[in-house]
């Protein structure tokens, strides 16, 4: 197995863990954590492809990863802001209980 | 300008820092176990019991000289309830010669005492006063901090030593009380004598 395949497998595993978490946990914050994990797995893919790709000097994959880190930080801030605001409305962060459209 | 105060403060601490090496009068602290400051007259730590020695300096008659009459007012008034008194069964004459109860047991738990001085203020017999002794540490947490009446008893001379002004006032008041009591007994005796003479006179008149 080439090193790249190893990295891709780990990234796939992390992505699946994140996906499983996002789909199975009740707490909204943990769903967000799962999404962060998925984003991170994608970053790992980008960096691995950059490292073993034909043109590492073009920095494309690395740049993608850096921008993705920045965007993920913004996503986390907004997502957690939403969770706090939902918690204020519904007094819970349990996603199973958030089944009403009424605010 | 913003930040000026900070610079001024920094200059002040720097002055203190260097000044403390040059001028000895800046250093207001003393090195405690070796050096001590004389206690202030108004200082108060924990209460003690005053006794009047018949011959000054004689510690043997502390029990006889205790001013306390076990009236238990201080025990009732004590906010943290740290005074334990047991009244004696018999009586003994006090300084005025009047037979009074005396404390068979008088304990103060100084681990509980909060030095409020209420016991001193309520005592009608000037028997309990505040001490200035503060080095009371002991390795026995419970027994060592429960002082009995022997440990609490201090002579009137000692009281004069630590709180001179206050003690003189107390002595004057006691002397006045004693004088008043003596005058009263004298007056009573005089009245009794006068009554006796008048009765005798009446008897004599009747007889005549």
């Amino acid at each position: 197995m080439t090193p790249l395949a190893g990295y891709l497998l780990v990234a796939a595993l992390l992505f699946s863990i994140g996906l499983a978490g996002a789909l199975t946990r009740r707490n909204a914050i943990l769903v967000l954590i799962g999404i962060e994990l998925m984003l991170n797995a994608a970053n790992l893919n980008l960096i691995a492809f950059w490292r073993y790709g034909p043109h590492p000097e073009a920095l494309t994959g690395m740049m993608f990863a850096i921008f993705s880190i920045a965007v993920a930080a913004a996503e986390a801030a907004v997502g957690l802001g939403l969770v706090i605001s939902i918690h204020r409305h519904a007094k819970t962060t349990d996603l199973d209980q958030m089944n009403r459209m009424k605010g | 300008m913003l930040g000026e105060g900070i610079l001024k403060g920094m200059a002040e601490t720097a002055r203190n820092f260097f000044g403390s090496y040059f001028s000895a009068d800046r250093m207001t602290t003393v090195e405690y176990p070796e050096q001590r400051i004389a206690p202030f007259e108004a200082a108060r730590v924990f209460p003690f019991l005053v006794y009047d020695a018949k011959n000054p300096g004689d510690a043997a008659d502390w029990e006889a000289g205790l001013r306390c009459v076990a009236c238990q007012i201080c025990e009732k008034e004590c906010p943290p309830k740290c005074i334990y008194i047991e009244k004696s069964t018999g009586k003994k004459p006090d300084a005025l010669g009047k037979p009074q109860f005396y404390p068979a047991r008088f304990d103060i738990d100084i681990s509980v005492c909060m030095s409020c001085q209420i016991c001193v203020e309520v005592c009608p017999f000037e028997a309990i006063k505040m001490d200035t002794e503060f080095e009371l540490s002991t390795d026995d947490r419970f027994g060592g901090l429960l002082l009995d009446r022997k440990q609490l008893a201090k002579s009137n001379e000692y009281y004069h030593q630590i709180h001179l002004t206050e003690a003189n006032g107390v002595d004057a008041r006691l002397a006045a009380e004693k004088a008043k009591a003596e005058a009263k007994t004298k007056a009573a005796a005089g009245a009794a004598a006068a009554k006796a003479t008048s009765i005798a006179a009446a008897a004599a008149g009747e007889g005549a």
Partner: protein
Amino acid sequence: MIQNLDQILVLLQHWLASFLPAAWQGAARAFISAAAIVCVFPALFAVAVWLERKGLGRMQNRLGPNRVGPYGLLQPIADGIKSLTKEDIVPLSADRAVHFLAPVLLVVAAFMGFAVLPMGRNMVLVDLDAGLLFYYAMGASSELAVFMAGWSSRNKYSLLGAMRAVAQMISYEVVLLLSSVVVVMMAGSLSLTKIVESQNQYTWGFPHWYIFTPWGLAGFIMYAIAATAETNRSPFDLPEGESELVAGYHTEYSGFKFALFFLGEYVAMFSISGLGTTLFLGGWSAPFSFLTWIPSWIWFFSKLMLSIFVFIWMRGTLPRLRQDQLMNFAWKFVLPMCLLNLMVAAVWRFMDNYWLRWVVCSAILLLAYEGLGMAELRKKNIGPRSYRYVE
């Protein structure tokens, strides 16, 4: 001879490593350097504690510790023995694993920063190309340690202290980063050795330290403020404000774990002072060109100790801030000044006339400082404050 004295520690390291087979020498050198860092800074910690207690004492017209050894010099040893032999109490309801990990993580994160600090000519553990970024990455991890300590103790005071500490550290980390970005702009590198080298030049005997420029001075002052807040030192010591929070996030720590927190605090102070020295005060370079014969590491450590003394001096002078004052100061005063400073540095970079740029840059900074300062002072909210909670 002088050259040798300057490099004596490097030579010593090479000599020690030369006893090993060639393949292991690189690792051995790294190990020796790391071991030296791990030994030197705790020793410096002991000295600094003694200095702090003595200095604070003198500032308050006391003698300070004077019982153990001459001038109380052995006091740190006595303190060390005490905290090593004390019982280590963990609260019954505490989260044991997290409670144990927090001080360890804090100390490790504090020590990691030294890896990229050049402590003398050729004296750097790893010369990373992104050294400054590495330093700040390690500094950011210590926040999590503080949170872990506060949360795992299951104590209101600990949690409050930790939340305060984390909020404060995050706010001031922005300032810390932005105030050092000007240096990166000028030096054109994130590598700390390159930053020092760019300052190690002399004109008429005076060094090219960044503090001797308008933007450098402003940056240094803001860096110092942020560094004080980042290490939770007075006047920004709200997280452990003993009059309100017992001891903040290390309330429930005793014995050796408490000593680790104490060590972590001082090591963080050393490393942040070392970084400030590197960024603004020329690192290991001598203050005058005729003093370059003194070994470089002596300069580094004397500058470090000088910064420590300023830390102590500030602690002896300033009262603690209130939480809202702390936040307002960071976000409404220091951060705008930082952003302005970035612009001033750019102006400095692209203005050719030597004297004119001095005047222009200083004028911009002073005017902004005065204007913003007056505005902040006038706006001072006096009266009942409103609090905001999430229910």
